[in-house]
């Protein structure tokens, strides 16, 4: 829909929070980056050059404001790569960040948090809370805060706010959200104190309100103070929206300048950073209720990844501002592309959580955007035209082939791409069939559009061989020929037995899946878990045997929690720490990987194997031996996940 007639009258219109002017409604929501420097105890949490570039990139991309998540207390760190807002050593880089983002008419907002009972450290040195009690999902107990400690923490908050106001930041936001100390104070589940900070509603609100008051005193009446507010904790026994709205009203009375919607907790982390299972815009009802409850501006959040959606929520009066976190990690230029009306050019976040959250939030990356956290090398403006235009031939229309073709074409090379099947997209065409994984299809949707836009000559249903290469006579060849699944030879099989297929066959040919299915997992990623999701949704009676200690050990946590929930609810049986030794008749012999004890399971009509794939690099080797300039990308190099093959391909495209 190029040149769409959608008008983004609200989304692109300016707005004001107090005296802070915002040029449009796009707000980059706070997120831990893992980019701060850690050189050991007391020399950690140092705001880095990489931090600066990450936020400047979003300012360049057209956001009205970036929110920078920070820790307040150096003695209580979420992680050692989390910038410490109160540390004077960060002053110069904080100043530079404000200066840089202001160049793009973008505002710079501090988000201050005290980790409290939450941490990413395992094990943490110490966790603190209003009362001694761990987060239900956490194994580490807490220390009940004493009043002097509370005073000290309050001072850190004030120190951080003042430090940043002093170097030109535009507003301060306190986190009473899915993690951290302040929410535990207002939560009747976590706050069991018997002094003036617990018991009644007013008592539970006291500590956050004291901090707000202290900051207000220090920063003056005109400096905006916002709250990131968890509206629903989504914990059994925790508070829900009715209570969240009551808190909102109290915060408004206390003179807070805006509310940024938030939900969930570490115990329901799939609601705080929702994977694709949770519907787009799932939390808008909360923002809409906040809007009805308070008169101060409200920021919406949660799976908002598209300007049309954003305009709609504004026109439905769900919020005044649109918060996007992962969408702007994935495509920092979303606001500018909206402005230019280039909607198809927007790369939508697929909420896979693999890059940003996959490694426990340490070092945020993005599956689709190799530039996230690597702005210096892959950010806006780093893709420069090639010195000499070359003729490039890409073999394979999977993700890595398409990505390499995109980058090469953008740099001015003349690119043709050959795909042996009738569709572009490679393995993603199978992935998107798995329940709740349809959005992964965006990966090839985006690339396909780029290929069209940049004039890549696409040939489907064409298998490349030596002869075709000689005919085309390209300067450079990219081999993106993928991989083939392998059924490991340690599994002994008798020929006439059960139908044994690999997971790709299962995803491709529904009719091969029987009624009683055993899935064997020797990878730990979606191959087994996702196929099991599909097979059980089809209604087959399913047993899953995994060599890992639990199924989906390499699937990102928010996704895997919900996946396991679905599988167990559908009655799947999961057997961990076992491998298959033999398949005979309708019987499968499995062996405990620790004790080597064997067990025989029976009555299956289908066995689906999810084991390693092997690179399909025959042609690559052949052409290389023939002296061609050929470079391999993707699974052809080594079978891996989307993030890794996109990175490969980006590099290859830039290297031509």
């Amino acid at each position, binding site marked *: 829909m190029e040149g769409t007639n959608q008008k983004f009258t609200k989304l692109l219109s300016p707005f004001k929070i107090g005296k802070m002017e915002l040029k449009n409604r796009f707000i980059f929501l706070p997120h831990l980056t893992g980019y701060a420097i850690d050189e050991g105890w007391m020399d950690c949490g140092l705001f880095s050059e990489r931090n600066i570039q990450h936020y400047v990139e979003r300012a360049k991309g057209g956001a009205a404001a970036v929110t920078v998540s920070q820790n307040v207390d150096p003695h209580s760190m979420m992680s050692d790569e989390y910038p410490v807002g109160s540390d004077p050593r960060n002053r110069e880089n904080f100043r530079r960040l404000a200066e840089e983002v202001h160049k793009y008419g973008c505002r710079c907002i501090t988000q201050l948090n005290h980790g409290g009972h939450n941490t990413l450290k395992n094990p943490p040195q110490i966790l603190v809370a209003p009362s001694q009690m761990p987060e239900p999902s956490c194994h580490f107990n807490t220390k009940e805060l004493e009043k002097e400690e509370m005073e000290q923490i309050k001072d850190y908050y004030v120190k951080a706010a003042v430090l940043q106001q002093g170097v030109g930041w535009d507003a301060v936001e306190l986190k009473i959200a899915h993690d951290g100390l302040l929410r535990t104070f207002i939560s009747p589940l976590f706050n069991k104190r018997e002094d003036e900070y617990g018991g009644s509603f007013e008592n539970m609100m006291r500590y956050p309100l004291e901090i707000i008051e202290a900051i207000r005193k220090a920063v003056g009446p005109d400096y905006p103070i916002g709250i990131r507010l968890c509206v*629903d*904790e*989504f*914990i*059994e*026994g*925790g508070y*829900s*929206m*009715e209570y969240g709205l009551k808190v909102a009203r109290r915060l408004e009375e206390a003179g807070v300048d805006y509310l940024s919607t938030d939900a969930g907790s570490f115990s*329901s982390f799939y*609601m705080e950073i929702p994977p694709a*299972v*949770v*519907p787009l*815009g*799932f939390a*808008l*009802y909360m923002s*809409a209720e906040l809007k009805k409850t308070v008169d101060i501006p409200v920021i919406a959040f949660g799976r908002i990844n598209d300007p049309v*959606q954003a305009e*709609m*929520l504004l026109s*439905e009066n*769900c919020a005044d501002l649109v918060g996007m976190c992962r969408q702007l990690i994935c495509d920092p230029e979303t606001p500018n592309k909206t402005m230019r009306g280039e909607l198809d050019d927007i790369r939508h976040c697929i909420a896979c959580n693999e890059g940003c959250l996959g490694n426990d939030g340490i070092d945020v990356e993005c599956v689709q955007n190799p530039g996230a956290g690597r702005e210096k090398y892959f950010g806006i403006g780093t893709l420069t035209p090639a010195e000499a235009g070359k003729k490039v031939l890409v073999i394979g229309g999977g993700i890595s082939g398409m990505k390499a073709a995109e980058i090469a074409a953008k740099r001015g090379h003349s690119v043709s791409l050959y795909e042996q099947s009738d569709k572009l997209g490679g393995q993603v065409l199978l992935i998107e069939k798995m329940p709740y994984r349809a959005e992964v299809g965006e990966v090839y949707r985006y690339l396909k559009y780029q290929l069209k836009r940049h004039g890549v000559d696409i040939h489907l249903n064409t298998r490349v061989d030596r002869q075709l290469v000689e005919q085309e006579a390209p300067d450079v060849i990219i081999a993106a020929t993928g991989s083939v699944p392998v059924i490991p030879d340690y599994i002994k099989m008798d020929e006439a037995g059960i139908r044994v297929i690999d997971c790709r066959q299962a995803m491709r040919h*529904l*009719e091969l*899946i029987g009624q009683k299915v055993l899935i064997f997992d020797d990878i730990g990623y979606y191959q087994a878990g996702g196929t099991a999701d599909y097979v059980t*949704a*089809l*209604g087959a009676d399913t047993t899953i045997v995994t060599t890992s200690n639990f199924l989906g050990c390499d699937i990102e946590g928010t996704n895997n929690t*919900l996946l396991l929930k679905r599988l167990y609810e559908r009655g799947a049986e999961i057997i961990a720490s076992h491998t298959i030794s033999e398949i005979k008749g309708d019987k499968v012999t499995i062996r405990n990987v620790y004790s080597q004890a064997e067990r025989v399971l029976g009555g299956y009509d289908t066995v689906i194997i999810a084991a390693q794939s092997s690179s399909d690099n025959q042609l690559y080797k052949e052409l290389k031996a023939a002296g061609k300039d050929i470079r391999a990308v993707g699974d052809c190099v080594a079978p891996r996940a989307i993030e890794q093959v996109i990175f490969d391909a980006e590099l290859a495209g830039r290297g031509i």
Partner: protein
Amino acid sequence: MNIVVCIKQVPDTNEVQINKETNNLVREGVPSIMNPFDEAGVELSLRLKENYGGKVTVVSMGPGQAEEVLQQALDMGADEAYLLSDRTFAGSDTLATGYLLSQFIGGLEYDLIVCGAEAIDGSTGQVGPIIAENLNIAQFTYVNGIAREGKKWKITRSVGKYMEQHETEQKILVCVMRQSAVPREGKSCGRTPEKVGAGAVEGLNPDRVGSAGSPTRVVKIQMSDSRQKSYVVIDDTLPARERIQMIINGGIEQKAQVEFMRGSAESLAQKILSIPEMSKVLP
């Protein structure tokens, strides 16, 4: 075979805003278009004509400006177009409009009358049924497709999950859905719409048209809270686990769980045919 299509010019509701103070639709500067349901009706009629022969006549009632949509229908390929336009028609509600249209169409030769299932500006869906009642002919609402077989009309209605098939040899009126056909682009043609005043409609009772013939009173228009939102709504009083599940399922208004079915084409067909409700629908 003569087909009469009723069409209406409407404001493009994608562009309509509500004035916050007066709660009225702001129509100024809003582009006018042919009601998309009617546009589908014109397209369906043209396809019938192309397949089985005949003539397509389009009729509209409205101010002079409504000639635009009639011209559009002519450009798409309609043979004749009439605009019922008269000062005395002003202020007609659905009852009066239905009466007027039936009075005019009753004077034409017709085998089939096609209306849009509703208009996007008022969404009453009443005019088609009123015309059919006045002319005392059979009517089919929510029609997704229509074909001719010998002397028979074959009509497809979409009802919830199912498609209903009907057959008849009578004169009928159908109210068609917006998705039933994608309208073609028009090519400018030499034909123009003809204007018809009150005097030219035979046997017209002046008391039954215009505001005089319109009992409907619009008391107030306002943004409705219950109108379909683009976001989920959940019951906040449920336990956390159920609130989460409700969100994942798409909110209170979650659609009925769609059942997965699998198998070869033949076995799927068998399965579908064995659903009890299906056997009632299919021959």
